[in-house]
């Protein structure tokens, strides 16, 4: 029950953000603001990656605990899921570092955008997690 609530609440926010991003991309393209549309596409991709990682984490914990979703150790799931927020951005961070060294402003902007979006998605998850115990 708790697991279902967490997923429902979290996906509600994430899907809303994905939907908003898609609409914004369409709008920006009609306005000939193609760079901003591309930035929004990047943002949407990052949100989508972490949405997918949710189910990946579920499967991971579910398989090694060999339990039903409801019996699953929630804290173990949280730990597994949050690990993706550290591992996935590793390449972004090194790319950002290189971009800074080379004064590549466009790349800096994009890598910072990805990291910033990742932090936001993480905060949505944390909000929903905290909501479970209210």
């Amino acid at each position: 029950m708790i697991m279902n609530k967490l997923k429902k609440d979290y996906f509600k926010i994430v899907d809303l953000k994905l939907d908003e991003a898609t609409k914004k991309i369409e709008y920006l393209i009609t306005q000939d603001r193609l760079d901003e549309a591309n930035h929004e596409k990047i943002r949407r991709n990052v949100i989508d990656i972490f949405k997918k990682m949710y189910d990946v984490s579920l499967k991971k914990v579910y398989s090694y605990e060999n339990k039903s979703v409801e019996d699953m150790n929630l804290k173990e799931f949280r730990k597994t899921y949050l690990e993706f927020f550290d591992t996935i951005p590793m390449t972004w961070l090194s790319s950002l570092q290189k971009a800074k060294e080379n004064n590549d402003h466009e790349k800096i902007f994009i890598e910072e955008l990805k990291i910033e979006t990742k932090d936001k998605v993480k905060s949505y998850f944390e909000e929903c997690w905290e909501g479970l115990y209210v």
Partner: protein
Amino acid sequence: MFDNSIKIFKSLSDNSRLRIVNNLLNGPMYVELLSERLNLSPSTVSFHLKKLEGAGLVFPKKEQYYVVYHLNEEILNKNLLSLVKIKDEEREKQDRRQEEYRGKIIKNFFEYGKLKSIPVQRKKRLVIISEISKAFEFGKEYTEKEVNLIISKFHGDFCTIRREFISEKLFTRENNIYIKVKEL
């Protein structure tokens, strides 16, 4: 060749950047002010300003605590023609390449001053008929018989080549009088 022109056109082909340039036409501004006026995040404004700066359209200047962006009027005052016009050295290169191509076609299709065959490809045919047309003087009037005679020195099918002269507008024809008006 057009490196900077391409950067200029690319950076201006964006609605938000055009709006930034328009705002800067009213005077230099800092990122936060542009951000408020255009309802864009400061980071997005900075992104666009860097692109405009890369094309040389704006430049930053530190004033007290702020970095203020100015328009580079020298570039903005250039006319479109000066931006699309290629440099002489590039034009020379293009002319040289074209000349090499012509030379190759002529070498392949002519033998001892005679045309071996009329090329099927229009691009090659143009080179050939242009080469034959060199046997004619500009502005001089030729009867059809004279035209045929001169062409036949190169190839037996003078009718086809003569018609090509007209269809490719190298010659004008009026009352069966041919005048050379163009050479390719």
